[in-house]
């Protein structure tokens, strides 16, 4: 059982009205923008389940947009996130989807387009009390909460990549808390998620990219 902190009970500190529909939504988008590489120009949110039905009354839309701009759950600017996004030149849209039913009730897909044209889509679930997880990255199912410092590596599903990753981490003296590999299909794209208690040094990314099968890497610090 994961550690339940006193601040999971007396907390989160948050803009209301709902820990799952407002704070959780903000937290999903906040984590999503940390995973994005490049400057965000456009964001498309697709809402499912209860999110799709009640997003306006719970400010889910404003919270998502606030989170994608890096606002934390207790940032009062969430109230004005529509205006702030317009000022920052970020294009945004919300689409409720009530056709997909085999899905967690509070789910959102976030498709981010950066200034260089690259896109990243993540699916997040708000699982209660403000707790969230990312369950899909592009088309690959993953399981990621952002509670630890993490590096997500996009790679070809080829032999030797995992060994390369652990060697890089070992050379930087980083202790691995968890390491998991997810892939679409055999020999295709795969994602490695490494979580660590230690802060991850910036130079790590270049070292990882030295292997031709490593396509990209995102470093996500948990602070």
């Amino acid at each position, binding site marked *: *059982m994961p*550690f*339940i*902190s*006193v*601040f*999971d*009970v*007396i*907390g*989160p*500190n*948050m*803009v*209301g*009205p*709902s*820990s*799952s*529909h*407002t*704070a959780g939504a903000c937290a999903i988008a906040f984590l999503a923008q940390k995973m994005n590489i490049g400057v965000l120009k456009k964001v498309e949110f697709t809402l499912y*389940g*209860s999110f799709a*039905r*009640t997003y306006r*009354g*719970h*400010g889910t839309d*404003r919270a998502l947009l606030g989170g994608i701009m890096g606002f934390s759950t*207790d940032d*009062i600017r*969430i*109230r004005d996130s529509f205006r702030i996004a317009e000022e920052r030149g970020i294009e945004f849209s919300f689409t409720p989807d009530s056709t997909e039913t085999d899905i967690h*009730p*509070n789910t959102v897909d976030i498709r981010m387009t950066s200034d260089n044209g690259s896109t990243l889509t993540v699916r997040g679930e708000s699982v*209660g*009390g*403000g707790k969230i997880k990312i369950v899909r990255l592009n088309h690959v199912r993953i399981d990621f909460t952002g509670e630890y410092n993490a590096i997500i590596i996009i790679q070809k599903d080829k032999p030797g990549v995992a060994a390369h990753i652990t060697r890089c981490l070992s050379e930087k003296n980083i202790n691995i808390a968890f390491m998991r590999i997810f892939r679409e299909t055999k020999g295709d794209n795969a994602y490695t998620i490494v979580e660590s208690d230690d802060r991850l040094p910036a130079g790590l990314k270049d070292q990882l990219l030295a292997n031709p099968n490593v396509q990209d890497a995102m470093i996500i610090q948990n602070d």
Partner: protein
Amino acid sequence: MTDFKTAKELLTLCQDHQWLISDVMKRRECDLGEVSMEQTVRRMERALEIMKQAVSSALKSPVKSMGGLIGGEAEKLSAHRRNHRAICGDVLSLGITYAMAVLEVNASMGVIVAAPTAGASGIVPGLLLALQQDNSLSDAQVTDALFNAGAVGYLAMRNATVAGAVGGCQAETGVAAAMAASAAVELMGGTPQQSLDAASTVLMNLLGLVCDPVRGLVEYPCQNRNASGVAVALTAAETALSGIRQLISLDEMIDTMYQVGKRIPYELRETALGGCAATPSGCSACRTDAAGT
């Protein structure tokens, strides 16, 4: 390592070391969260600060909620207390005012501290800030009381649920009131055993309460139930402080609350399909079918 899984283990830790419940919870946070005592206390002080800001903001500038069902209640109660004698007495009158204030801020996208949820966020600050004012207590004492409240909420979260969608309103305002009652006992000089008895009493008195938000919004009757949660917490704290013991332990009541919660029909667990949400008045403007926690 200072950790506990049940109220019984919590009580043993208190008795073995002559600790208050708040002491155990602080030590647990430092041990398991690997943070310093100073950081832990500072973080709780920040939570208290947000609670106070929420109360004063609703009293100074009342606002309509996002869904338009509530707004201005705290100011009305405040004016009533100024112009008439509060029939509840000072502590309860202040407590319900503050609890409704926090819910008003929550429902208008203001900043609050979920305790344990946003929908039940008025009860703990409502009662504790009222006691602070009535007894001229320090912020340090109230901060400690919040750690005590956190211990009870943690037990409910660990061994049952605090989600209305899973266990009904008893799991949200019920647990919040149990947290407030336990914290109030410690704040007023009661023993750990009395704190746990008070929390047990609250869960007993709110057992079975359904979650039936009108239009699926965290507004109505949520705000009323935060006020009544303060009253239930206050009476439980008073009975515990007087030395009245409870036959049923907090551990048993948390378990029972969970069992009852799972048997509450789906329509009465935050789906806005039954209860207050399905009354003619509640439903006249209904347009949604699910709420958040």
